[in-house]
């Protein structure tokens, strides 16, 4: 695509391989760790209810693959909806806070107070208001994700070098143009940091949200496993949650590299 070919990018196949390589390395590392755990468990004779063999965990997943697949999809959707809403809201309100002092001084403290309430405390309320719907879980995810994004957006918007602002002003740029071309791009690396943090928080929120009366999802499988002290089932849902979390995190990293091409936190 570029005029100057990079060494690895000279051939499409090589370039594609270059993109897959880190993923492959990750999978190999994970496989090595799991194999090591398997050997340690067998060698030390660790009892299955302390730590089950990874192969037993995979067997459990493969015995009812549809249940785990549905759970991943359901929890993934809950997280995605809530996270998208939380991210958009957080960015929007963060920008608004940076521009409107009045709003910042009146609404921001309420946000802070809202974050001091543990999600477990209002989980029952969410069920009363939204029922057992995917919306209820997404609301919990939203609640956990919007705040870090708001704080970091505000921080990023204010991290602008005032000399650059004055320079643009001297060229006759409007406030709107300065926002679009300077402040927002400056804030983007900060925003992506918040998005990464929020993705993990949001997933945890979705899992816990499912503890308030639901029938599908990783949180439900986890709860069922805990109730029956079925360690294999617990680890199976932990593993699926980890997969989902890594996928979300990587997707955000990928978006960041594309959007903050000049180098953000990932540089």
């Amino acid at each position, binding site marked *: 695509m570029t005029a100057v070919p990079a060494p690895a990018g000279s051939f499409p196949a090589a370039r594609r391989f270059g993109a897959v390589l880190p993923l492959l390395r990750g999978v190999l590392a994970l496989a090595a760790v799991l194999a090591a755990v398997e050997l340690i468990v067998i060698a030390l004779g660790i009892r299955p209810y302390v730590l089950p063999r990874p192969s037993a965990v995979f067997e459990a997943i493969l015995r009812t693959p549809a249940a785990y697949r549905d759970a991943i999809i*359901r929890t993934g959707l809950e997280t995605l909806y809530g996270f998208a809403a939380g991210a958009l809201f957080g960015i929007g309100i963060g920008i608004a806070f940076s521009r409107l002092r009045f709003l910042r001084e009146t609404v921001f403290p309420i946000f802070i107070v809202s974050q001091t309430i543990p999600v477990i405390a209002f989980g029952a309320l969410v069920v009363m208001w939204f029922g057992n719907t995917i919306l209820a879980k997404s609301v919990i995810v939203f609640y956990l994700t919007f705040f870090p994004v708001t704080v970091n957006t505000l921080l990023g918007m204010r991290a602008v070098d005032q000399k650059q602002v004055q320079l643009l002003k001297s060229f006759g740029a409007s406030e709107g143009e300065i926002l679009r071309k300077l402040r927002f791009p400056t804030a983007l690396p900060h925003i992506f940091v918040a998005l990464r943090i929020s993705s993990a928080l949001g997933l945890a929120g979705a899992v816990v949200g499912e503890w308030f009366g639901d029938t599908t999802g990783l949180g439900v499988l986890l709860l069922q496993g805990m109730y029956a002290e079925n360690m294999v089932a617990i680890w199976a849902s932990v593993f699926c949650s980890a997969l989902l979390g890594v996928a979300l995190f990587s997707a955000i990293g990928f978006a960041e590299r594309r959007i903050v091409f000049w180098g953000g936190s990932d540089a």
Partner: protein
Amino acid sequence: MKRRSFLSTLGAVASAAMIGAPAMAEDLEKVSLRLKWLPQAQFVGFYMAKAKGYYADEGLDLTINPGGPNLLTENLVATGSDTFGLSGGTDSVFAAIEKGLPITCIGIAHQETPFVFVSKADGPVQELADFQDASITTWFTGANYVLYAMLAANGLDRSTMNIQPQQVSVTPFVDGQVDVVTATRYNEYYTLMTRVGEENLKRFVPEDFGVSFPRDTLIVGNDWAAEHPELVQGFVRASVKGWLDTFADKGAAIDLILKEAPTLDRAHQEFMLDEIEKIMMAGAAATDGLFAIDMDAVGKAHQIMVDYEVLEGPIDLGKAFDSQYVDAIPAAERLPK
């Protein structure tokens, strides 16, 4: 396009979650039953009644909502979020009535205490008197009062005993850090059996020591019941039929619950259903049939809660428990054939 598929997915999932099953005839009354926990054999009779269309026969389009930790069934029924509930037990009904929640108990599923206290057969605790010097764990959500009452009824002073709150796992007991552990007969006891072996366990059953604590109570909101007495009646009738079918064909019942929650362990669910059958058919239910409200047993449990000042004073049991709906069904129709 993206937005549309997002909305349609959201809509589809939301409606699937709310309706639960394809909508049937238009004139069915939409109602819901909130369970005390996630789907498992403990509740399969309700799923059976739904699968066989017994609720629909009574004019009800019933959705079964699972419970979870921190979800109080009484609250959800009192606020109208759910129509019916299978709530914690007589203890949670007492507490709800004391708080003034507008709910009534219309049936009791577990006729006797569903949990026991367990020690090791070769351990230091061989009889109740040995609790004195043992380390004991129990749930501080009601089970502790049953234990206190058992000890008091047998002249033992609990104030000098080492009684700690029990966490989720029974592992401390298995590993010998704890001498006496609390276990529901259908869940934790199964875990203990698989880890320690039943022959190595000793059970202390509250009923053997003169204490009983009926649990798993069917509740309904007062306003709704006043407006729809015939539907409450229908709900109870359909539930009884579902449970009798469950006990008549347990294999089919286990298949049904595993379809609902596929990751559950079949052997454990089979054991659970056997125990649930014993608990549901015990006491007054043995002669009067399923969901019998034994005011004698309720009164005793109530007295424990008053004695230990969990309740500030006695509550009006006649108002809190209403057996008209179960009584309207002849005992013969509430007993297995």
